[in-house]
């Protein structure tokens, strides 16, 4: 059974739009999203993996090849339903997972064809697919590029077999290089590598080595994450049982600082807490998230944000495949103005471009919490966690490491 979404009808109608029925929203069709509108982004979730990594809290199931075709069929109908809420050209597409590259080549062809047939896609679209280094083949890459994919995000995580073992991440580090070469050969110009640091047992030198190895592959973009212990993952369980030791704060701070320094030296710009790119290569799709812009979501477990509404498709493959039209949703949320401002501050401060003073003023003047938020920002300016630069407010290097402490008070 699906859980009723944590929302009241009163909240829904307070938006000004009227609701026909008094039951909780079953799908996005029940939300007062307004007339079809131009959506800038589309996220598609492919929920298959061949094995579950121990730090992972994404919705994915260990692949049963038998359900891939049914899943893609259903995804196509999901596209059709979604298109009714979307007019105009999509600017960014991100196909993530799971392990999208696990999908059979033939199914990829079908998926991409449907995507183009259903949506209007801008000619300068940024179209990213997440790839697992084990599953990248020339054949697949040709299908992807033919389907308009122009950005590949490769989950490298680490080049150290011991670290990969610790994460229970099953791939051969050598395959990262192979994937990059194949992608370049297929004409993909924009490549991201995902890396993780502060893995238990990892030293600063290990991390510096990982980073250098990644740079030697000449990526256009790097996402470097301090390892997060998400609830309900085997890593977190082992941490709680005392079977592994979290990297020391100080060490993690040093690794982070090294990342900032080393990547700057290599010509990368840091534009978000965990993201670096060569000039002009920032991930446009992810920027939508941090700018609180609108995007639609297809596939089980995918989250959307449209016209102030957030929701998530129910993360269950069976239920998804059994559905038609728009999938069932959960975690429906519509914040009031004050909540949305807090959320906007939380997201925007992650970006190193910060917030222009004038924009900040209008955010702070809009509601009664303004003065409290202002006071907290002033305190953090004084403590050197925030700084004013070219009339914008942004985090300092020290602030980036304490970002949660800063935004906590702004929510």
């Amino acid at each position, binding site marked *: 059974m699906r859980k009723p979404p944590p929302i009241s009808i009163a909240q829904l109608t307070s938006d000004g739009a009227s609701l026909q029925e008094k039951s909780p929203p079953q799908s996005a069709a029940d939300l007062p999203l307004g007339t079809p509108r131009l959506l800038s982004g589309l*996220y598609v979730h492919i929920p298959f993996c061949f094995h579950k990594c121990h730090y992972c809290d994404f919705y994915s199931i260990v692949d049963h090849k038998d359900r891939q075709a049914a899943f893609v069929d259903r995804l196509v109908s999901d596209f059709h339903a979604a298109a009714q809420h979307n007019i105009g050209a999509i600017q960014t597409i991100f196909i993530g997972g799971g392990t999208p590259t696990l999908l059979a080549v033939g199914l990829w062809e079908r998926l991409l064809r449907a995507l183009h047939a259903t949506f209007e896609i801008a000619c300068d679209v940024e179209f990213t697919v997440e790839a697992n280094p084990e599953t990248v083949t020339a054949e697949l890459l040709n299908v992807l590029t033919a389907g308009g994919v122009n950005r590949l995000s490769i989950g490298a995580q680490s080049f150290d077999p011991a670290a990969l073992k610790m994460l229970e991440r099953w791939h051969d580090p050598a395959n990262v290089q192979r994937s990059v070469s194949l992608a370049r050969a297929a004409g993909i110009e924009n490549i991201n590598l995902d890396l993780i640091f502060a893995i238990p047992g990892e030293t600063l030198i290990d991390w510096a080595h990982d980073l250098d190895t990644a740079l030697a592959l000449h990526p256009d973009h790097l996402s470097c*994450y*301090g*390892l*997060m212990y998400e609830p309900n993952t085997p890593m977190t369980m082992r941490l709680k049982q005392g079977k592994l030791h979290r990297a020391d*704060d*100080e060490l*993690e*701070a040093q690794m*982070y600082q090294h990342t900032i320094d080393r990547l700057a030296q290599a010509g990368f710009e840091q534009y978000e*807490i*965990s993201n670096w790119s060569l000039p002009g290569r920032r991930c446009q799709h*992810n920027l*939508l*998230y*941090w700018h609180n812009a609108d*995007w639609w*979501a297809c596939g089980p*477990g*995918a*989250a*959307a*944000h449209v016209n102030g509404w*957030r929701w*998530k498709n129910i993360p269950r493959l069976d239920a998804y495949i059994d559905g038609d039209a728009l999938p069932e949703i959960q*975690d429906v*949320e519509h914040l009031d103005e004050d909540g949305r401002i*807090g*959320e906007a501050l*939380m*997201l925007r401060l*992650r970006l190193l471009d910060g917030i222009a003073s004038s924009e900040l003023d209008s955010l702070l003047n809009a509601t009664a919490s303004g003065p409290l938020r202002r006071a907290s920002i002033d305190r953090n300016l004084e*403590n050197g*966690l925030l700084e004013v630069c070219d009339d914008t407010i942004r985090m300092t290097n020290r602030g*980036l*490491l*304490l*970002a*949660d*402490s800063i*935004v*906590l*008070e702004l*929510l």
Partner: protein
Amino acid sequence: MPIRNFSIIAHIDHGKSTLADRLLQATSAVSDRDRREQFLDDMDLERERGITIKASAVTVHHTYNGEDYQLNFIDTPGHVDFAYEVSRALTACEGALLVVDATQGVEAQTVANAYLAVDNNLELIPVVNKIDLPAADPDRVAMEIEQVLGLPAEDCIYCSAKTGKGIDELLDSICRILPAPRTSEIEQTRALIFDSHYDEYRGVIVYFRIFDGSLKLGDKIRMMGTGRTFTITELGRYTPYPTKVKEIGEAEVGFMVAAIKTLDDVRVGDTITLEHDPAAEPLPGYEEPKQMVYCDFYPATAAGDGKKGDYEDLREAMEKLHLNDASFTYDTTHSDALGFGFRCGFLGLLHMEIVQERIEREGGVEIVQTAPTVSYQVEKTDGELVEIHNPADLPDASVIKEIREPIVRLEIICPNANIGDLIKLCDARRGTFKEQKFLSDTRQILDYELPLGEIIYDFYDKLKSITRGYGTMDYEIIGYQPDRLAKVSILVNGVPVEALSLIAHKDNAEKRSRAILVKLKKQIDRHQFEIPLQAAIGGKIIARESIKAVRKNVTAKCYGGDITRKRKLLEKQKEGKKRMKTVGSVNIPQEAFMSILDQGE
């Protein structure tokens, strides 16, 4: 109709309330349909904890030798904190059932309560209870009763409050052995108020025992102590159901309602007389209960920012509870760290815990509680004597001649094997050995005098762990004595936090301070800056610790699907922080205010 008034007294858990159940059953006062265990423990907290907190009085009937007897009895609490309840109940009676558990034998509160009864000139019936249990050894227990209390072993009545065995014999003995109440000594009416209780609809309900004359519905009465007058609008008895009557006569026990709005209008221990024909002298009353421990209650949510909202809610809850329990005291107080709150006095730690729980539960407010302390007497250099209930109120060291602390006489009953360890414990707590007696060939009674401040917190737990649960203790205050005491201030980030200060003996102040700082270090989250923790006597630092600055607190990944969850996580942290108290830009969680209870052992 002959009347017998008695209390049921015992050590905690020896079966008083269960015995009361059997008396209600054997006298057909409670129908089988309404039966439930510990019928008289009707407060939620009593039922949850399985202990009696408030004494309850009931009236039942028993036929003995063909004659109908009215039996008025009071089930009393056994815990040492509620000794005051017991002593009040005893003044309304001529006799008492002294219940002793046949598997446990005589315990500390058995002795204490037996002496209380004897001091009140009550006739005692020793009852050996729980004889149904396989481990019961009633003969040995009867011998203990004879040896320790001087009540002949052959007078003991053996019974089981569980199976009902021996209950009929007990009822007969009550009628046969306990004395009839004295007859009126004067013509005017005099009734002793032994308890009161606040009812939202009817106002104060007064429980009384008539010694002289009688009271009728509609009588205009006067409280001899307060001088206030009222008209009786309802009279009744608990049978155990409240049953209205028109008159309550000589030597009987009952309750009345008389449009009394607040408990301040009624003093337990006061004498009721008739307005038109008052008695000349009141009955001997009670001493006011003596509060043993003090601590502060603050509303949990107002972050010391001077906001009144939650403080007012707390005040309302305290006032309301005080209507039902006049034995705790409360006065407005203010602390830099915690804002506005109340300094409260309690009969003991269990009492404190129960009041806190009732305020939170019945008043719907959450409380931050500071560590309990005892009261001290301070003699100043100019000869003035002040009593302080809070280390923060201690006058400047330069004007203090001496600080005196409350001393108790402590009686421990324990197995022979544990005597050595207990002596060690008492000595470590600055105790003075007084006496050691054999209670039987396996158990002894150990008497010590020691500072109340040394036993109030964790002593009982230590005693229980040393004796594997077999030791029991009782204590009473015998006076105040000066010692080398000093105020230890705790500084967080350089700012003294009064709510964390304590009065300690100079010889162990350093050790205790260190233990407190270590505990604080664990309880206070790391901040963006390093936090020094210090303990000081006067200006001298006697211990220090520090909490390292946090280097990293960041959500590395926050993409489209993470936003709501991450935001909620941060909001939860923010809520948690709101409930902390801020001192010198450091957020201190509530538990930290209890860390000064750590003895450093």
